[in-house]
């Protein structure tokens, strides 16, 4: 065991290199967020962010949509994973759940916009959430399935034999085992949601989300210091949250 661990050092190097590559583009973003339009160091971006209502509103919209998509996609994903197991037609169900992956984003946006129009649903937060949940659902389902695939149903049968109800067995035995998958599905869906632009823009109606606003600015008027400040704020607060989370878990489980 020890020898195989030491032989794996190149992989640790790989992890460091890959992480460095992933974080490389965040550095210019943070630097630019503390720079004014003339290129001088400044916090003007952050100060203006507070007074730029359109960006703040877009941030709020994106946050609400992101949370809704994370919750909806992970619940539907969990149900989908269970239905693959229990409806007796696993292939068909799995295929259906993967379908949203097959249509290129542009076409998907157009097709769902048309569908909403035919159904008489006008664009709103709900249409945005539906379109994004569709896109996140295959990812959520696959992640939950990946965890569930290795879970031995014998555990559940044992629970039934011991007199547990289906719900009890699920709650007490299966859920704790597949919880990391559900949590993973929710985080994945959130990240997908707050980056989704192309499908969203087809059904956005009167709403700006952070990515649709950024895309439009990027194309036609340029990224303002306010947008860099927004990204800087997101990354810095994520780091703060991540560190707080780590401190808390370390304190709770000193042995781990």
């Amino acid at each position, binding site marked *: 065991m020890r020898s195989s661990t030491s032989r794996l050092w190149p992989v640790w190097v790989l992890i460091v290199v890959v992480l460095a590559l992933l974080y490389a583009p965040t550095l210019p*973003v943070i630097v630019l967020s503390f720079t004014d339009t003339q290129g001088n160091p400044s916090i003007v971006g952050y100060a203006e962010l507070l007074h730029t209502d359109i960006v703040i509103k877009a941030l709020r919209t994106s946050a609400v949509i992101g949370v809704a998509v994370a919750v909806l996609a992970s619940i539907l994903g969990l149900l989908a994973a269970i239905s693959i197991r229990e409806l007796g037609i696993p292939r068909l169900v799995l295929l259906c759940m993967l379908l949203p992956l097959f249509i290129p984003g542009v076409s998907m946006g157009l097709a769902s916009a048309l569908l909403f129009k035919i159904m008489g649903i006008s664009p709103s937060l709900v249409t945005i959430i539906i379109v994004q949940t569709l896109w996140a659902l295959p990812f959520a389902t696959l992640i939950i399935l990946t965890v569930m695939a*290795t879970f031995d149903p014998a555990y559940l049968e044992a629970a039934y034999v011991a007199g547990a109800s289906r719900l009890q067995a699920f709650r007490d035995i299966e859920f704790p085992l597949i919880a990391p998958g559900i949590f993973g599905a929710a985080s994945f869906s959130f990240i997908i949601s707050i980056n989704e632009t192309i499908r969203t823009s087809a059904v956005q109606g009167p709403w700006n989300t952070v990515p649709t606003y950024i895309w439009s600015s990027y194309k036609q008027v340029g990224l303002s210091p306010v947008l860099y400040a927004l990204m800087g704020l997101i990354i810095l607060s994520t780091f703060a949250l991540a560190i707080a989370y780590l401190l808390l878990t370390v304190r709770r489980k000193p042995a781990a």
Partner: protein
Amino acid sequence: MRQALLSLPLLFIVIFMVVPLGVTIMVSFWERAGLRFKPAFTLKSYETIVEGARLDVLIRSIAAAVEATTLSLLIAYPIAYVLARKASPAVARLILLLFTVPFLINYVVRNVAWTSLLGRTGTINSFLIQAGIVDQPLDWLLYSNFSVFLGLISTYMPFMIFPLFLSLAAIDRQYLEASADLGASAVATFLRITLPLSLPGIFAAVVFGFVGCLGESAVPIIMGGVGYELLGNTITSSMDVLNYPLAAALSTVVIVMMLLLMVSWYLVFDLKTFLGKILEWRS
């Protein structure tokens, strides 16, 4: 009640997905009448694809997606393996968290940031020139195949680590110990036990990577240079002149291709390798 609840996801997909999918395929056979299009059965849009530059774009997109996914898998698998099997849970959790944080930054902003690092006067070239390693800036760092692949891999590879990690972490250690007890080498154990048991994760990872790369339109726009066009860009471009049948035909080609991929997966691997014990489930 229980059945109804379980059919919910299916219903959701059928209503919001199968119908648009059907409409897309149908419209691809329609014909254009001025700026609108009307029901018909014509292969004209498909002829346009085969005759024009779109076929090159289609082939290039598929090739790029396959290459980027393969490279990403080669990077993601060892990382997931080490995190799942050799690292303590706390370390693994921390590193997985570190992999997700950059994705909270908008991908447009992220890719724009790359250009400021990779350009002729960017950070990397400035460093290389100052250090005396090169005298001319390296042009291939940006607006090249290299930068497109860097963009694709850095965007989708981290997504592939997660399913791989989850499937590897879930493998029962007893199997591995039994294999070792029976005198199998570490390599043999990996090939006979770990690799087959991680197939569900590999499948999910490949789907994530391939689908992401194939549909990507921002990376080629931002990092692609002299018109590095991928599928998503050419579909948008055909919509610019309201040629919805052509856009639908291009989408249909992708849909059919993906369905064929799924079918061949069934035929070659059997679903068992992916769904594992789920198929043995008796409800």
